[in-house]
């Protein structure tokens, strides 16, 4: 390969990694804004914990679990901080950084759903386990060259569906896993005090700053321009330069369509367009397009955005009003439901192999099977992890700490003084 071309690819990958890192403050601000001011230091701290633990653990062990060699396709060899096993065109240290920021994105999704009532110590345990184990394992099945993406003719997926699972940048691998864990975490934890009235009706607990939440969502939107186009992992040559432009366009269109869909659905449903839900709608579109941003047309991207933006409103209502699971920021709907939806819609709307483009149902079947396996893995790990910690250590802070704020009691310092 041309040396300059490889350098160009490397620079693009690093730039994208930096943009994906920038999603961390996006999540932090979004979650801080949607929660109350007495818990702001706590929620910001948790976002740092995710990235700090993720960086060390993924470098030391997780990277090997995900990309290490193995025979079965189910789990790689832990690398113990040694990167020499990896042989790719791109420099391994840069590639590790790129994969680290994706791992940290998956980890940080959960903090918002479990906000305002979780023990900090418990969160540190959770954050370590997802970066060390949950994410790298399912990542190995897919991006690590494992069984779900094994393209050899006698591989299980090719034998069964005639197609392999496709998740370009992580609707399923990153977002739905984070979303499923968020839902189970919030369920194991129970609702915030005062969230549900005695008759079971849901009460509003307005976040302390929609300004922060809005800035967070804009930052995430920008970060996604690295998340999706960066996942091409190359910029040189005609194919790659066209691909990253196409992915950038589909990503942006889906985000805009998602926000617009939510705006109109809430306008019709509640009589006024809801700003707080529209912010989630933008993220719903972004999460939805992530799996198929390389395969769908611009029209397909708009369709994915619109569908995710519409479904989001009903999903948030269903989880809140029917399931009575208290997710203060909507992470389980945005990342879980829309991550699954985007993965499935890729099987329908892909211009190469999608069912609606005459590709038959094999690819859609592969998408259904892949998302089922990945989220089942996340769910089993989530149940074991959160219910295990609940039994051994406890998940929740005391009622008094929750009432007066986690900042004072868990950290001894408050954000607003």
């Amino acid at each position: 390969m041309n040396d300059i071309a490889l350098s160009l690819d490397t620079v693009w990958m690093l730039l994208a990694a930096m943009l994906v890192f920038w999603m961390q403050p996006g999540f932090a601000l979004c979650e801080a804004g949607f929660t109350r001011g007495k818990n702001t230091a706590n929620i910001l701290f948790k976002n740092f914990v995710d990235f700090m633990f993720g960086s060390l653990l993924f470098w030391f062990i997780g990277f090997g679990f995900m990309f290490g060699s193995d025979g079965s396709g189910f789990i790689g060899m832990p690398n113990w901080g040694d990167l020499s096993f990896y042989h790719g065109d791109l420099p391994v240290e840069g590639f590790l950084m790129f994969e680290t920021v994706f791992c940290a994105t998956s980890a940080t999704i959960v903090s918002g759903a479990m906000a305002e009532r979780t023990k900090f110590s418990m969160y540190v345990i959770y954050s370590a386990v997802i970066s060390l184990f949950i994410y790298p394992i399912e990542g190995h099945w897919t991006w690590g060259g494992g069984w779900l993406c094994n393209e050899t003719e006698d591989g299980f997926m090719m034998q069964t569906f005639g197609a392999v699972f496709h998740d370009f940048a992580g609707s399923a691998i990153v977002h739905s896993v984070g979303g499923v864990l968020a839902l189970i975490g919030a369920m194991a934890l129970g609702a915030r005090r005062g969230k549900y009235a005695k008759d079971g009706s849901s009460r509003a607990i307005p976040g302390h700053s929609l300004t922060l939440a809005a800035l967070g969502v804009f930052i995430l939107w920008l970060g996604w321009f690295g998340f999706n186009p960066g996942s091409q992992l190359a910029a040189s040559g005609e194919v790659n330069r066209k691909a990253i432009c196409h992915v950038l366009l589909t990503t942006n269109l889906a985000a805009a369509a998602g926000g617009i869909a939510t705006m109109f659905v809430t306008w019709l449903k509640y009589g006024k367009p809801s700003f707080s839900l529209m912010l989630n709608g933008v993220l719903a579109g972004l999460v939805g397009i992530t799996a198929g941003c390389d395969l769908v047309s611009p029209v397909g991207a708009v369709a994915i955005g619109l569908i995710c933006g519409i479904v989001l409103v009903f999903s948030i209502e269903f989880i809140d009003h029917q399931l009575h699971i208290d997710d203060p920021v909507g992470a389980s709907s945005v990342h879980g439901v829309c991550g699954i939806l985007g993965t499935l819609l890729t099987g329908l709307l892909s211009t190469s192999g999608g069912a609606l483009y005459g590709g038959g149902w094999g690819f859609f079947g592969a998408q259904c099977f892949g998302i089922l396996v990945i989220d089942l893995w996340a769910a089993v790990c989530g149940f074991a992890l959160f219910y295990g910690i609940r039994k051994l250590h406890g998940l929740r802070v005391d009622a008094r700490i929750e009432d007066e704020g986690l900042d004072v009691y868990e950290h001894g310092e408050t954000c607003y003084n």
Partner: protein
Amino acid sequence: MKRIEAIIRKTKFEDVKEALLSSDIDWFEYHDVHGIGQSRQERIYRGVQYSTDVIERVALTIVCRDQFVQPTVKVIIETAHTGEVGDGRIFVSDMIDTWSIRTGEHGDTVLRDKK
């Protein structure tokens, strides 16, 4: 010497402030207040509809000599009036004494309202 407390609409604060400064009052305090009343406002947050009975108003506190009470009250009523329910209230009460911290004088002559 009297204390006048007026609870007015936030939107009328600028008008009332200008009117008071251009009349005989050259110092007053104000603060944002939250009141609970019978009227409720419908709100929606993240798909949950709720109503709030919290009403936001501005409270002014003016201490003046007796002869300025009537004109001051008149100014506030004229400028803070919209005719809709919720324009606010004015309370007048006796003030027993006052001291100037700088000079140590006391009595209503230390008030700096104009003659």
